[in-house]
């Protein structure tokens, strides 16, 4: 088991390497010059050239890449071109809201989706099942920002129950924290609930078909026990896998939700950085996000053996 863990951890390194190369190349090959944006709307070409030089953007690509990797290995993610502050510091500042939103969305989705999926599978083929499935398909057929606007109009403007936008940190005010988190969580959570519910239902269906379930029922076990302790536990591997791979999708959804609700998180940081070609920030953020994704999936892989004793490496 130990060597397996080490092997898996080592295997993540080439993946991160690939990410680094992709990210670097993509950005440096793109047109759009941070120097021009920094110089401002009314600057002349000389201004822009001066700024380029000052920022070191006129060096050859290979050199820039090597320098960047070198910095990374010492934990230095560089400075934002615009703000002249360390990228890592910026990320740390903004990671709180994104983390809060991601965790609450995942929690919301899991709490809602798994019971719904189990229910749908249990009563498969019924109108209830089809209704749940139809609604879940609807939930991820409508763009998240529309759901967001609808919620804002309904709950913030008409009913005046919840704030329109922004984020309050837990330390500032726990109540404010919760209030500001409700609408973005629901907007994004509905989509993930839908996805998870479908996977849950699908795998539950497969599992419920297995012989051991029939045995359990024949033994006279109560249905909830059968469903949860026996069927769900066995179906959990694909569900947990989906949660893991879903994190990449979640980040994508968080980006849009943060834009709608003005949550100052990593998603918004990245978009602004991309639109302005703030290379160090974009590179840093994507690396960090990819790293988190890889680590989470690693953790999930390693916990498979807990969930399903048949999986051993």
């Amino acid at each position, binding site marked *: 088991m130990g060597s397996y863990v080490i092997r898996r951890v080592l295997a993540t390194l080439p993946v991160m390497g690939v990410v680094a190369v992709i990210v670097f190349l993509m950005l440096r090959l793109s047109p759009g010059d941070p120097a*021009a944006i920094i110089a401002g709307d009314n600057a002349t070409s*000389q201004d822009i050239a001066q700024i380029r030089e000052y920022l070191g953007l006129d060096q050859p690509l290979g050199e820039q890449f090597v320098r960047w990797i070198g910095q990374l290995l010492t934990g230095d993610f560089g400075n934002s071109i615009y703000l002249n502050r360390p990228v890592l510091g910026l990320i740390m500042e903004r990671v709180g809201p994104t983390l809060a939103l991601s965790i609450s969305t995942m929690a919301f989705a899991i709490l809602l989706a798994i019971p719904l999926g189990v229910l749908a599978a249990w009563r498969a083929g019924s109108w209830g099942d089809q209704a749940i499935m139809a609604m879940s398909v609807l939930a991820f057929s409508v763009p998240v920002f529309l759901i967001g606007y609808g919620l*804002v109009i309904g709950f913030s403007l008409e009913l005046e129950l919840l704030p329109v936008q922004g984020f309050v940190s837990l330390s500032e005010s726990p109540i404010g924290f919760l209030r500001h988190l409700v609408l973005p969580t629901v907007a994004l959570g509905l989509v993930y609930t839908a996805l998870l519910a479908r996977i849950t239902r699908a795998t539950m269906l497969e599992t419920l078909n297995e012989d051991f379930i029939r045995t359990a029922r024949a033994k006279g076990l109560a249905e909830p026990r059968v469903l949860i302790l026996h069927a769900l536990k066995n179906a959990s591997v694909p569900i947990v896998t989906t949660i893991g791979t879903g994190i990449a999708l979640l980040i994508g959804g968080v980006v849009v939700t943060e834009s709608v609700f*003005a949550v100052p998180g990593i998603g918004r940081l990245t978009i602004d950085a991309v*639109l302005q070609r703030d290379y160090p920030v974009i590179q840093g953020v994507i690396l960090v996000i990819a790293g988190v994704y890889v680590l989470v999936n690693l953790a999930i892989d390693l916990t498979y053996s807990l969930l399903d004793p048949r999986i051993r490496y």
Partner: protein
Amino acid sequence: MKNTFRVMALAATLMASVALKAPAEAQDRATTLRAVVHANLQILDPVWTTAYITGRHGYLIYDTLYAMNAQFEPQPQMAEGHEVLENGLVYRIRLRSGLRFHDGSPVRAADAVASLRRWMVRDTMGQQMAAVTASVDVVDDKTFDIRLKERWGMVLDALAKPSNPPFIMPERVAQTPANTQITETIGSGPFIFVRDEWRPGNRVMYRRNPDYVPRAEPADYLSGGKRALVERVEWLYIPDQNTALAALNAGEIDYFEAPPLDFIPMLQRNRSIQIIDIDPLGTQGVIRPNFLYPPFNDPRARQALAHLVRQEDFMRVVVGNPQLYRPFCGAFFMCGSPNGIEVGSEPFRQPNVERARELFREAGYNGEPIVLLQPTDRPQYNAAVMVLAQALRRAGVNVDVQAMDWSTLLSRRASRNDPHQGGYNIFLTTQGGPTAATPPANSWFNTTCDRANPGWACDEELTKLVADWSRESDTAARRPILERIQRRAWEVLPYIPYGQYTQPIAVRSNIHGVLIAGVPVYWNIEKR
């Protein structure tokens, strides 16, 4: 069972949180002015960048030697007054007493001199001043001299320039080379930048400067007494306009710098919101042709372009609300300003497609694609580009509209390449306010060819006329020069104006004292 209990507890907490509002939040709100700004403040050096948002930041924490009043006359601000010596070649400026920087140190002439020197390297008007200045010297602790090489009537106007003025910084900060960003944010203005509460991309915080000594006069445009009447000013950056509007409606923010123009009627109907026009001169739309390549290297092609522009169409689409624009403004220097005469624009009041076609033919245009740059993430520019594209196409011009984001456009427009190899033929932008109303300060009007802004407008005669105007300090003598400038401009067209409109601000009804100052300034404002 345990799970059920947990879920119920969570639900109860949520419901409770919905019902309660943290009392601390409410208290803070009473003394903090929360404003939604139009851009993300990133660069803190107003000399290093011309970005508007940095300029507004500058007005909060710095002060200027002179400032404009509502008649666009420079008034002493940090200066106590000035003398003009040696037949107009020396301007001796005395500072007021009692001025201090935020770190407590007194403001001396040396600080002013260093700040001016740095500003003169980068700013367009500063560079013009530098060209006619022999030296800027400290005379004593409170006095300094600007020694000119020749008479120049724009010295005080330059010092009082509304956009990108020479903000006064401590000498040690101003000694940073002009092509390097400053790192300190110490000024002598009515507010202090609270750096540890700055969250880039989210919010900026300023607090009242208790040691600021405002002038005795009432506030008048950018001049007069700058009394800070709120404890804190909080800038929020909310890029989604729907969200910002909703926040204003819900009272979560007090001041919306740039509400989308289509919403002004709706906001006007809302009794808890006031719409205020703080910039009587407004914004001018600019169509900038590229002088380096055909067809627009030929003035006839540029005139043809001008003959295809119906300003009202642009205004309808970009602005929508007729209260906010004029059907036509033929002045290069802003209708409604002292320099806003419209002579020379008569042939262009209405589109003339026939004449345009003729002129294009004369200029040798044969149907080659004209590259027009379109910024997809700037809604107002985007709209204007689409109107222009349609007007050109209807006249039979072959238009190649290239869509890209603003950052790509900014670097594209700086390229001197052939339009079909990474260059362009036309792009659009805006400018406004009193800076655009002053011939030497209007940056897109600058026709110094290689040293001009992208587009590289080039006309010796126009450049000479503007220099003549600047040199002349007598208003009566300036008038005939101005008329010649206007006429020449409509012949050579450094750019083609596509309309003049205002962007009002929207504030909650409990906000009082908003100044008509051309730009959002936060002194004089109270929240009751």
